[in-house]
């Protein structure tokens, strides 16, 4: 079991636009309306690069910025861990279409934006963070996998970690391939020690067997988010934090294992 402290949250999902607003919805103080909106523009990215950035870049950088602000953290002091089930599928769609044409018209910008770590790279350029940066994937288990990775980094390096989950609405040709049905990005700032900014203490454990799911905290409309986008999975933690619950929950991780989390509110 390894302990990390959750200091900041950023979120962008249908009906959940910021952590402050999402918190009131998760507490049941305001109603949840599932409503798709255009992606926010990541204004932190310098203007030239911003115009060339794709949907995953805008989404990931936007929620990362909110989480770091809420945590009152210096982004330069954080290790970056970004994760997505599908990466930049919209650019894959553009490139694969272009490759069916005789001249294979792929632009250099499309190519470098298609690289899996492009959102993390735009973030490091926008914030001038020069530390370690990892982008990883575990299909539908991407969040529990990335959470283990972030926990291991906090534990090993005794440094804070910015963990960013992002998946955008899949383009049409992929709609029959377990597609993401909408945009969702959630970022967490995880620290090695408690501070006045800490929202919750998380004890995290890898379990090599399935344990009974303990996640009845979300109402059905919010569960729709988790079922429609792998990057919405942190909502279970966010709900416990919003309700200042001390709570245990588990995530299925790959086929036979689980990640267990004990949450203790510090808010």
């Amino acid at each position, binding site marked *: 079991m*390894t302990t990390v402290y959750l200091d900041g949250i950023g979120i962008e999902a249908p009906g959940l636009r910021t952590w402050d607003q999402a918190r009131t919805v998760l507490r049941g103080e305001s109603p949840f309306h599932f409503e798709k909106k255009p992606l926010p523009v990541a204004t932190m990215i310098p203007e030239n690069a911003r115009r060339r950035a794709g949907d995953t870049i805008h989404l990931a950088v936007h929620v990362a910025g909110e989480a770091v602000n809420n945590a009152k953290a210096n982004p330069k002091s954080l290790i*970056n861990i970004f994760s997505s*089930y*599908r*990466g930049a599928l919209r650019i*894959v769609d553009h*490139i*694969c279409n272009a*490759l*069916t044409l005789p001249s294979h018209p*792929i*632009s*250099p910008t*499309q*190519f*470098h934006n*298609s*690289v*899996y*770590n*492009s959102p*993390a*790279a*735009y973030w*490091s*350029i926008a*914030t*001038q*963070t*020069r*530390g*370690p*940066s*990892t*982008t*990883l*994937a*575990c*299909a539908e288990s*991407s969040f529990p*996998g*990335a959470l*283990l*990775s972030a926990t*291991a*980094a906090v*534990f*090993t390096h005794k440094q804070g970690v910015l963990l960013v989950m992002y998946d955008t609405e899949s383009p*049409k*040709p*992929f709609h*029959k*391939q*377990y597609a993401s049905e909408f945009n969702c990005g959630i970022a967490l700032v995880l620290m090695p020690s408690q501070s006045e900014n800490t929202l919750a203490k998380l004890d995290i454990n*890898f379990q*090599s067997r399935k344990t009974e799911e303990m996640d009845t905290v979300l109402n059905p409309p919010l569960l729709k988010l988790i079922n429609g986008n792998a990057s919405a999975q942190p909502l279970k933690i966010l709900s416990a934090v919003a309700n200042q619950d001390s709570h245990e929950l588990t995530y299925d*991780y*790959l086929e*036979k*294992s689980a990640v267990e989390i004990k949450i203790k509110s510090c808010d």
Partner: protein
Amino acid sequence: MVARLKEFDCRNNRLAQLTLQQDGFEQAVEEAKIRYGPERIGLFLGTSTSGMLQTEMAYRHRDPVTGDLPKTFNYKETQNNFSVAAFVKKYLKLEGPALVISTACSSSAKVFAEASRFIESGFCDAAIVGGVDSLCQTTLHGFSSLELVSTKPCRPADSNRDGLSIGEAGGYTLLEKPENSDFKNQITFLGYGESSDAYHMTSPHPDGRGMAQSMQMALECSGLKANQISYINLHGTATHINDKAEDKAVVKIFGSSTPCSSTKGWTGHTLGAAGIAEAIICAICLNNNFIPGSLNTRVLDSDFGSNIILANRNEAPTYVLSNSFGFGGNNCSLIFGIHS
């Protein structure tokens, strides 16, 4: 592909399987499973494009009316970036933590750092680390659009170098804690450094700022001094700007005497598999008292200050450092030695 896993069939996973069947690796994993239990062995693989070729081919066969991809296309088990780890995990019947790192050309170097952290945190006791990357049209035309592909076999550090040669590769190693078995004379992973350039998506910082930082961090992690490194396996892609920036970074940290070379003249640039391919080359050098020269390099760039060697040497390196740098300024350096 083995029949029980045929849903994973694509060029990248075929290469993953072919690689698993080399050098007694499967047998070594079976023995490790008995020592640790399959649930205590982590799996950390790197790839840049996974089974992208499968999607490219599917797009050539879309329904002309609906635009649908063919029914036989299986995104999740082929193109998705986790596919290679899902396949290897099932092939080897592992039950520990698993993930894929995709940071372009540093992917399968960073898996060593990731595995190290997972073991240190107690999430697993041993790890399989590696990487698999195979050719696809996206990489070929993408690198061409950036004018980074050489017209000839690549010439790292040559004054006339004009770009990289794209290769494909797979590789794995089994990492165990030294106290867990008899490790005398075994190859040892001693340290890692990871950094970001925070400079440009496709060009390294011209002074090699992030590259130098990653090498310095690897030295600090291993507890070694710069003068204890006896060979540096360069990232050395043979693009004009990479080799120049890396030369500056090497000189800054190591000065001008440490022997170094890129082995991409031998292998091409195997992208997401370059880190593991070159880690294994370093292991071969340590085991066989060998330092490789820079193949295809005729005339060294006269601006370079590092000690790039052109001819092979039969010398015993003590500690070696391997560099892997990816798009987005994602840098990783690894240090290996022989356990005495």
